[in-house]
Structures are given as C-alpha cells and as structure tokens.
C-alpha cells in the first residue's frame, strides 16, 4: 500500500487528512494514532469540557462515517514504532508495516511528568488526552481540595474550571508570576487578580517536596519544601510539554527541540513532512526558528502540507494566534511579543475589556486582548499585512482598526 501516512490524530493530523481530500488528493490516506479514540479536539479538555453536559461526542472532529465516506483509513490504538526511510515504510506496534509515498509526522507533544515522591499516587493527574480528563473526572466527585502544580495556560484553565465546579483550588507556581512565558507582567497581574476574585489561592516561589499518601495509595496532601501542608484529593500537574520527536530522531531526521521543517513544512527528507507542536520552523514574523504549541499552528501547517502533497503551491507564513478561556475572560494573543520595545493600551482594565498592542520600534508585532475579540481579529489582519496603527488610533477605542486593512 502507498499513499499518505499520517502519524498522529490531533489537530494537525486530522486537519491534514481532511485538507488532503479537500485539495483533491485521491490516493490512499491512513491516519495512525496510538490513543484508540476517533480523532478529537483537545482545547476543550482544560476549558469547557468538564463544565458541559454534551459529553465526549462533542469533542470529536468527525464521526466514523466521515472517514468512511472520504476513504480515510484509521489505525487507532496503534503506535508507529519506527520509520524505515530507505523502504518508505512505517512499522506499527502490532508488527504491521505501512508503505508511504509521503509521510506526515503530527506526533505532537509529550507531557512533562512530575518527578517527586508521591507522583504515582491515585489522584495525581495531567491534562492532555481524553483518557487524562476521564481520570480527572473520575476523581472530581470525591474532591473538595485540589492542588494545581504549574502556572501556565493548562494549569490556570483547570484552576478556573475547578473553581467553577466549587472546589477549593490552590495553584503552586515555581516562579514569581503566572503565564510568565506567554504574557507580560501587566497581564499576569491582571489575570492573578481575576483568579483571586474567584477564590483561587495562588502561591509563588512554591517548591513541592512530596505528595502525601493517605495510607491506601491515594493522594491526601501536598507538602511544600517550606513545610506547608496543603490537603488535596486531586493534584493536577500542568508543567508543560516537550516536542515528541522520538520517531524523527531515530529516523535520523534533522531535529533540535522539534523536527526541523522548511516553509513547505518538509523535513530534510523530501517525502517526510512535520506539522504542529513537534515541528520547528523559521517564522517570518520573528525572523527566528520557533516551535509553537497551538491550534492555529497545527491547523495551518497541516493545510500547507496537504496542498503541497496535492501538487499545489503553498508556504506556511501565517501569523501565530492563541487563546485561553478562564472564567468569563477570553484572552486572545496574536503575533509574538518577544523583544517588544513598548506597548499601548486600548480599552480599560476596570471594564475587563482591554488590549495591549506591542511594538518593536515602530512595528506592531503582537496584540494581547482581554474580552476584545474585534481587536484580535483586526490584529491578525494588521500583523499579516505589516500595517502598524498609530498610538492615537490604538487609544481611540472608537477607531475601527480593521479599516486600516482592506478585506
């Protein structure tokens, strides 16, 4: 069998299969994913999923019949264990081999695991997969106190969810502010105030010593290095991920913190592409090699790969965007703010509706918005077009920013 083999059924893997068919590709498509579920959407897992009553079906990208109708083969519950580049084959964990014309690596990221005593106790969880969230869900009823380790998006989105569910929530942050890798100190402070308003206790400079056992293998508490004991029946660790490049490294593809790809998302093997969390590419907006963990990046890279495989001209140069939902706050980010020299604010923090416009010298490079989606949408167009509004236009909330870019 030949055709396209896609490794991974997350946003990038699923999107690639779908876009291949939309682009008119009529060869065989086989998507392999180790999890054993129909491809599903991960963003809701830490956000709305536990608060919704719509169940797991609502997470699916598509029902089984879509894959049948579009002749997309699914190998679910099987991992690819090796790539044999010389034979253009991948090997699965059941010994099966699949030949490919083109191979797409959409292997995503691997969870960083806690490395401390008690990490394996019943009641210690993570959020990345459907199985992870089922595990957390199965512990929620018995949980009054939850301790969350980490201060990034997953940790804080789950803090928001747990607080909404009426749990007593303590968040342990190793550094001195939340969302330190994603936003500026001003926005960290604003989000901290929001968490405080919802009764969430956030502790900075917190180092976990161990997770204490209740004597039956269940979590009972979290002990900090300063001696503090925090009762907990559920401990959630949101301490980041690393690019899953194992297969690519073993296949001797060029990797360093991610599988290195060119503007067409091609690796140094012309028949192998990579997309999503595990792909590292040269970003035209930052002028540097980056690896992004986001839906936008996964989807847009996968679309480029599909077009290229289908014989069309395509290059990946989308402006990056991200979002996070916490309580009633919709945080949206467009562009990369690293290296900004100054910023202007639009709207007001008191109204919980404001945006920060980041400039490097006189060029707009990123916008972070809180409950101002129009600024975000306009920002995507502005940054894509390389148009920088003036300070006056930004600070005049009545000025239509999208009028600066033609549709």
């Amino acid at each position, binding site marked *: 069998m030949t055709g396209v083999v896609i490794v991974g059924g997350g946003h990038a893997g699923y999107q690639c299969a779908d876009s291949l068919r939309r682009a008119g590709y009529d060869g065989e498509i086989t998507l392999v994913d180790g999890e054993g579920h129909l491809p599903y959407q991960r963003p809701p897992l830490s956000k709305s999923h536990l608060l919704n009553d719509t169940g797991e079906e609502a997470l*699916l990208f598509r*029902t089984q019949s*879509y894959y049948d109708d579009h002749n997309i083969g699914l190998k679910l519950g099987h991992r690819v264990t090796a790539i044999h580049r010389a034979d253009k084959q991948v090997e699965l964990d059941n010994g099966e081999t699949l030949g490919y014309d083109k191979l797409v690596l959409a292997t995503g990221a691997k969870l960083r695991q806690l490395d401390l005593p008690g990490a394996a106790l019943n009641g210690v969880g993570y959020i990345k997969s459907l199985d992870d969230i089922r595990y957390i869900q199965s512990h929620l009823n018995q949980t009054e106190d939850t301790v969350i380790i980490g201060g990034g998006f997953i940790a804080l989105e789950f803090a928001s969810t747990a607080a909404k569910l009426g749990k007593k929530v303590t968040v342990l942050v190793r550094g001195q502010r939340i969302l330190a890798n994603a936003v500026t100190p001003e926005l960290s402070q604003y989000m901290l105030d929001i968490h405080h308003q919802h009764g969430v206790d956030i502790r900075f400079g917190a180092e976990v010593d161990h997770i204490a056992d209740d004597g039956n293998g269940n979590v009972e508490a979290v002990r900090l290095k300063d001696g503090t004991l925090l009762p907990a029946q559920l401990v959630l660790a949101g301490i980041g991920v690393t690019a899953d490049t194992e297969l690519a490294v073993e296949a001797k593809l060029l990797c360093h913190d991610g599988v290195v790809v060119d503007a067409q998302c091609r690796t140094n093997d012309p028949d192998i592409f990579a997309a999503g969390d595990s792909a590292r590419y040269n970003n035209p907006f930052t002028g540097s090699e980056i690896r992004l963990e986001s839906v936008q990046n996964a989807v847009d890279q996968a679309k480029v790969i599909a077009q290229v495989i289908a014989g069309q001209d395509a290059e990946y140069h989308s402006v990056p965007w991200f979002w996070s939902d916490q309580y009633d706050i*919709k945080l949206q980010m467009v562009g990369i703010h690293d290296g900004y020299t100054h910023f202007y604010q639009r709207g007001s923090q008191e109204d919980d509706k404001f945006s920060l416009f980041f400039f490097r010298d006189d060029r707009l490079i990123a916008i972070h918005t809180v409950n101002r*989606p129009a600024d975000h*949408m306009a920002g995507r*167009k502005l940054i894509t077009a390389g148009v920088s509004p003036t300070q006056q236009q930004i600070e005049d909330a009545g000025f239509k920013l999208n009028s600066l870019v033609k549709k």
Partner: protein
Amino acid sequence: MPTVNYVSFDGQSTQLELAEGMTIMQGAVMNGVEGIEGECSGSCACATCHCYVDDAWLAKLPEMSENEDEMLDDTASERKPNSRLSCQIKATAELDGIVIHMPEEQE
C-alpha cells in the same frame, strides 16, 4: 432530537438530527457538512463558523454575547442582520427545524 437544516452557499440542503445541547457548528463539522469550519472548537475565538440564520428563527435564538457581536465584525463573508456564529447556538427543542444558510467563505 432537534433537526437542523443546513443550506450550502450553492443551495444544497442537508438535514441532521442533533443531540440536544450540541451546537449547530459541532453538528455540521462532525458530520462533514461543508461550509462551516469551527477551528477553535467552539470557543468563539476564530469566526470560522459564521452562518446566516433563517429569519423565521432569529427571534428564538439566545441573545448574542458582546464577544460574538465583536467577532462577527470580522468574518470572511459579509455580516448581515441574521449573521451568527454557529458555535454559540445550541440545538434545542425550541429550535427544532431551524434553517441555517452558509456563507460563501469562512477564511
């Protein structure tokens, strides 16, 4: 289960029965109805599930949030008085039979 009628930009009609509580966007995307994308998984963050709701049903819809209102100002296809984001409309008994028209493009 409420029925939703999706009408594509070129006039093709698809009828689906959705589980109560599922959004119009989810129903379309999961079942492969073309014309609605829903890139952000229904988080009201991408405006790629823009739709035009048949006038007869407009009054029965839940009120639009400020966020949705703002997002609709930046859709790929023209915003009209009956524009909504389909991720913000849940299928309910009251909306049984609703007719949804797809825009020309989503991005």
